[in-house]
């Protein structure tokens, strides 16, 4: 399957993008329907496919923030009006519609046209734009190509990514996004040093389900931050045979958000800060490399901890939705008690699950190198494990 990418350097397309951006840059204060009317003029006169132009319009609409607060006075007035119209129409016979309108106008004390215009003035088409996040025409066109892939991935059940060693920020965000989207990742590495990461969800073992399509589509931008990558996914569009999508970094897809890498969630930053205040020897930082696990398996922790003596260990936190991955990790680590590669933090909400409780009770690895936490780990719990490691 070959996606229908557009050429972001195409002058005609850049021109169209610029024209549309001009409308949206002047959109603050205008209603949704006014903005759509103005962009329709450009779309209708464009020499390109109208579908493509409407795709650009949609991407720009998504960057608009509209005023959505309910107008309580309007809602109250509407209710009273409907009570009046209900009574009028059920009790009186009107010779004409105009006669009914006149009777209502008299009750309202204003022309019927004004009443009708006000009646549904809070519909989405009448909402006013508050803010537009602008960007360049070239970035809009690149964004279109990424959105096109995301649309295809909505219809995928799984995807496989092949990649080599990466910049640590990129790895970190990649795996953070994987965990956030509750996707399962099977990681292996071949002799040439290429990692193969298969991403899907638990039920995809049995079922051709599109349950994970949305997760895969929203996860995909994380792939674009890797410097070298190749992606394969089988796409199941309705009423068509499945087709294989194959892409790599050479197609020129660009990541669309710099904030993606820069953002560190507040609780993580807080934990790091607190830990470092309480501990002077061990150094903590967001993890920057894979951890080798038994067989061909690899893991990617949340944090890396290093001691001046050269000892190093990862810290991996399992939150409420990580039951399956925790089981898997406990199994992988069961023979590694003596030289633990990972400390394991488990959210108390997850530990309430009787099956998880049983797993944790069974695991001598967890007894030695694990701890429970609420929301985020406490430095004290981590330090207790590190003390045992240093002994």
């Amino acid at each position, binding site marked *: 399957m070959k996606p229908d990418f557009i050429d972001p350097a195409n002058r005609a397309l850049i021109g169209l993008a610029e024209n549309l951006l001009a409308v949206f840059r002047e959109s603050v204060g205008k209603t949704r329907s006014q903005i759509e009317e103005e962009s329709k003029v450009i779309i*209708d006169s464009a020499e390109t*496919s*109208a*579908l*493509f132009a409407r795709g650009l319009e949609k991407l720009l609409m998504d960057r608009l923030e509209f005023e959505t607060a*309910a107008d309580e006075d309007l*809602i109250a007035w*509407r*209710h009273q*009006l*409907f*009570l009046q*119209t*209900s009574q009028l*129409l*059920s*009790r*009186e*016979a*009107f010779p004409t*519609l105009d006669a009914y*309108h006149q009777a*209502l106008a008299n009750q309202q004390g204003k022309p*019927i046209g004004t*009443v*009708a*215009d006000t*009646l*549904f003035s809070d*519909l*989405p088409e009448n909402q006013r734009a508050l803010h537009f996040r602008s960007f360049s025409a070239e970035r809009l066109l690149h964004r279109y190509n990424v959105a096109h892939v995301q649309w295809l991935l909505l219809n995928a059940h799984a995807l496989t990514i092949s990649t080599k060693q990466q910049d640590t920020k990129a790895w970190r965000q990649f795996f953070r996004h994987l965990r956030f989207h*509750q996707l*399962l990742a*099977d990681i292996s590495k071949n002799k040439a040093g290429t990692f193969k990461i*298969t991403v899907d*969800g*638990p*039920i995809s*073992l*049995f*079922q051709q*389900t*599109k*349950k994970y399509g949305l997760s895969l589509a929203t996860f995909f931008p994380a792939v674009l931050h890797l410097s070298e990558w190749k992606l394969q996914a089988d796409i199941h569009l*309705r*009423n068509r045979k499945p087709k294989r999508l194959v892409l790599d970094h050479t197609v020129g897809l660009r990541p669309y958000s710099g904030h993606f890498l820069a953002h560190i969630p507040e609780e993580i930053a807080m934990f790091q800060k607190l830990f470092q205040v309480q501990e002077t020897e061990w150094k903590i930082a967001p993890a920057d490399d894979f951890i080798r696990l038994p067989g061909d398996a690899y893991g990617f922790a949340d944090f890396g901890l290093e001691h001046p003596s050269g000892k190093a260990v990862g810290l991996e936190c399992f939150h*409420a*939705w990580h*039951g*399956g991955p925790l*089981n*898997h990790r406990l*199994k992988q680590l069961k023979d590694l008690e003596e030289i633990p590669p990972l400390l394991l933090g488990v959210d108390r909400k997850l530990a309430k*699950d*009787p*099956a*998880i409780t*049983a797993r944790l009770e*069974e695991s001598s690895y967890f007894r030695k190198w694990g701890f429970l936490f609420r929301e985020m780990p406490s430095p004290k719990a981590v330090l207790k494990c590190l003390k045992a490691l240093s002994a």
Partner: protein
Amino acid sequence: MLGNMTELQFDKGTLILHRLTQEEQQTLQLAGVQWDQRTQTHRAPAWYYREIILQLRQNEVAHEDHAKSFEPVALPLKKPITPRSFQAKARDAWIENGKQGVVVLPTGAGKTVLAVLLISLTERPTLIHVPTIDLMHQWIDVLSAHFDEPIGALGGGSHEIERLTVSTYDSALIHATHKGNAFGFVIYDECHHLPSEQYQFTALATLAPFRLGLTATPERADGREAQLYEWLGGLCFTIHIDELEGNTLAPYDVETIEIDLNDEERAIYDETRANYIDFLRSEHINMSSPRGWQTFIYRSSLTPEGRQAFQAYLTQKRLSQAAAGKEEAIWNLLQQHRGDLILIFTQDNDMAYRLGRRFLLPVLTHQTKVKERKAFLDAFRAGDYRILVTSKVLNEGVDVPEANVAIVVSGSGSIREHVQRLGRVLRARPGKRATLYELIARDTGEYYINERRRQHRAYERFS
């Protein structure tokens, strides 16, 4: 320590069977179970839970069930309910079917009351799936009336989980991976929605052993009702609209009113329809084929002639659905039915709001704010609002028992939609006779749409 005992665990819509060996699985052939190379465990979709537990028990295999997180719970009714005879038969058929199955009842026949009976009888935490927020509120009201329990809600901004919880299908889908083991009984209202590519996950990912599907129209154009029966335990009871008319359902009439386009509308309609049909012919597009519509959308976007044909399609469609003469017909019907409770159905929101502005009437669409939706429906039920305009959101399920007149201004060719709309006005009341009016623009494509949607026994005697 559990030793070597097989242990079941719920994991994101699936069951993991710890310590089940390959040899044991070869012998037992537990339903739905496969080896998962990714996690090195045996795994099955959660909906096989009932069958797996029964197989383990039958084979006297010791096991620990850590999968389900619910227990039996007494759910007595505030007041006893005496079911109608067909409700009692449906109840008995469902019990005999192992407390699972699909029950087909016409709209207005009291399927919610049947569900209440079965909830009380089953005595398990129960999750009810509904297609719309309005139905969610309706179910909450009914359950609150019958049970002395807090009623949870998922959807429409609510997120409260209780032993009895009502969820929209969309919200249930989001929570299925975490909550699939929290309920022992799942009910799917308007269950013909369930086999859709996304919603099916709500049936696959729950381990609830007791299941009920409710619908007036199980048939789907894609034939997937077979999957519906597979996931919910088969079709266990059916009763048709004509079997209940005059008793449980109000007697009714259906009247078709043909509207002439005015001269200007006729000229534009003929020209734009010709433009649209010519384009289909020149591009060899067959709109009856499964990909007809997508092909038309794509090809029409490529050229100026195509865009013109697309605009022509929209114009001729709008003229047939929203002909000026229809407004006059609606006005006449409103005058004729002064004092009645009237529902006006349109094909799209634009037409609904146009009628709302024209006649200064309340309009209920997906754009109506949540608080106002409830207020509109409450006012309509109480008779404070006598007329309500809607596009599609009231097609299904919403109970407006006093409504006795339905005006279908425009609609799709869907049989289901047409039967459901009729159902909105059929709730029996002493002395009530319901009427459904169909407004059809004469000599337009609407004629064929109307013919298609009337292919149901509810409309047979009016053809």
